């Protein structure tokens, strides 16, 4: 059976198993209809022109891994940012792992979507926010239809959350192929500040397809820093659909570090629904092999006096392919918008490809919008300069790549994440430079 049919056939059984609150029930039913109608996106759609899911969809995925699997902390410690104190919400094959997690209800809620969707005390928040930022495209709808588990984070107003929150999805590969659909909701109320780190990690070479949806709401003057670390193995596919809805004077940033996986598609959408909002979207992509990473961003400027900054760096080796499609919409009312977008790429192999496409739709007349994309090779004269100082070719290349990514790394506010990313880059390039840039 094709994956689409399998999913649709499974829907009723799924709905019977989870608690059926009417509100959520209706949302799910509507969503499965959309997915049924639209199906998986194909290259015929403009937004998927350069990314084909064909090779991913052919596997026979188990769509509801039901088994409770456990893993030892020591075996997976390396995937955590473990040198600082954090809240942790960890899932194994889609199921919550209490022994790897550290949740809280002490002044803020860091807990499970399954609780939020079923317990009365979360009802108000869920009705106000759940599925209110997510779009009705087919993959997001598919996730919505099956949404049952994920992380739920609610930060009440005037709260500076001291510890970052780590959200990690492990897949054990106990099934021959697994499909996961985590659903996350983050609501940050007035004047509050939170930092979140998200990671998807498969622990074997068995195929994993993750179709994740995260909705983030930043209320007035709230600050959210969100970091996505994507360094999965070569049979793991991630479709990340993230929606950030901002209210006035809020500041939200999402950093996406894409170093691995078979295919990664990041659909990152920002909606500015208030004045004096700042949005930051940054990313570093370093891939090789036959890997494919696609960044599809949208910043929608709806109100006046807002800013957005996009800065994506990509380094593509071997047969890898990259896509950057950055859309900025400035509504007629959104005067004095300041929107900046940059996408710089280096191809270090003749067989690597990058497709980069800025898309600006500007309906206001008093705005500053700039965009630029570059595709180049490593600077040969810089290589010779460094080598003439005794720095071998491999290290010289690595140094240039670090330097190239440095702008993005510099805006990471948690030093341990910066160190971790630096280390992942060094490991990937097979060098030990002995210092942090």
């Amino acid at each position: 059976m094709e994956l689409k049919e399998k999913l649709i056939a499974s829907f009723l059984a799924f709905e019977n198993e989870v608690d059926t609150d009417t509100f959520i029930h209706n949302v799910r039913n509507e969503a499965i209809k959309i997915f049924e109608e639209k199906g998986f996106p194909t290259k015929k759609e403009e937004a998927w022109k350069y990314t084909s899911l064909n090779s991913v969809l052919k596997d026979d995925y188990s769509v509801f891994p039901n088994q409770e699997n456990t893993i030892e902390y020591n075996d997976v410690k390396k995937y955590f940012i473990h040198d600082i104190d954090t809240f942790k919400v960890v899932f194994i094959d889609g199921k919550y792992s209490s022994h790897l997690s550290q949740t809280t209800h002490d002044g803020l809620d860091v807990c499970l979507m399954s609780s939020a969707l079923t317990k009365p005390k979360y009802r108000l928040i869920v009705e106000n926010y759940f599925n209110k930022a997510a779009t009705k495209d087919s993959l997001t709808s598919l996730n919505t239809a099956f949404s049952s588990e994920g992380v739920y984070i609610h930060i009440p107003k005037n709260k500076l959350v001291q510890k970052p929150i780590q959200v990690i999805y492990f897949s054990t590969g106990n099934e021959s192929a697994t499909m996961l659909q985590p659903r996350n909701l983050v609501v940050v109320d007035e004047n509050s500040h939170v930092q979140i780190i998200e990671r998807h990690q498969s622990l074997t070479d068995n195929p994993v397809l993750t179709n994740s949806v995260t909705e983030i709401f930043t209320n007035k003057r709230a600050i959210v820093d969100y970091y996505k670390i994507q360094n999965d193995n070569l049979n793991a596919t991630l479709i990340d659909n993230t929606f950030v809805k901002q209210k006035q004077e809020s500041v939200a940033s999402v950093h996406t570090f894409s170093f691995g996986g078979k295919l990664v598609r990041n659909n990152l959408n920002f909606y500015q629904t208030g004045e004096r909002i700042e949005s930051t979207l940054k990313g570093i992509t370093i891939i090789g092999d036959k890997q494919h990473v696609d960044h599809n961003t949208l910043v929608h400027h709806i109100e006046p006096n807002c800013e957005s900054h996009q800065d994506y760096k990509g380094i593509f080796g071997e047969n890898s392919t990259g896509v950057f499609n950055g859309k900025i919409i400035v509504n007629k009312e959104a005067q004095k918008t300041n929107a900046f977008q940059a996408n710089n790429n280096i191809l270090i192999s003749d067989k690597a490809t990058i497709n980069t496409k800025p898309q600006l739709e500007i309906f206001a007349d008093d705005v500053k919008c700039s965009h630029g994309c570059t595709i180049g090779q490593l600077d040969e004269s810089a290589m010779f300069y460094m080598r003439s100082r005794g720095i071998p070719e491999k290290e010289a290349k690595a140094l240039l790549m670090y330097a190239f990514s440095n702008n993005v790394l510099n805006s990471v506010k948690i030093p341990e994440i910066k160190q971790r990313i630096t280390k992942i880059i060094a490991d990937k390039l097979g060098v030990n430079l002995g210092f942090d840039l």
Partner: protein
Amino acid sequence: MLKINNLHASIEDKGILRGVNLEVKAGEVHAIMGPNGSGKSTLAAVIAGKEEYEVTEGSILFDNEDINELAAEERAHKGVFLSFQYPVEIPGVSVTNFMKTAINETRKAKGLEDMPAKDMLKLIREKSELLEIDRKFLSRSLNEGFSGGEKKRNEIFQMAMLEPKLAILDETDSGLDIDALRIVANGVNKLKSKDNAVIVITHYQRLLEYIVPDFVHVLYNGRIVKSGGKELAHELEEKGYDWIKEEVNA
């Protein structure tokens, strides 16, 4: 130390060097002068191992070893240093981190451990004082936004840090005001010893007032067409290069 025999080199099939012979012994300072386009910078780049140039004939011996097949970094590890005419800007890599990497990679190639951080700091302090370099300068991105003079001073600072056996200074005087020229020359002179050698490549005699050469060679059309003592530099300054060209073409 350096022995170049009948060196021919070309880039994209265009011959630039057409039979250069040059011997440099430890303790010596050689100046290579010549009109624009005579092959001076090519000679420097070929000795340092720039891959774009192809050696089609002849040999380069360094400490009696043919280094023609060695990569640029391997030559650097053996003690060859090139001060660039146009130092390359590398945004995102600080001067300090660049030097740390260069020194430790050189040590690694020699089978030595990384230099302890304390020693590294001491060395950096000592050498930056020698070149009158402000400490703040060292945390800036390499050559990015540096003035011409700062770039050249930074080249000699790197030379001081790496302590090469053979330093080739390619047009180090260009873009320098008189104060910077004095600082740079003073740095080079302090680093000179009976065990190392310097090749100064220059268009003008100005730098040679400060770094006094034992030998002066004139490179023209890819060959050394005249050699002499330091007085040859004065003669060239006075008379220009036309008489050399006439002598060669006659």
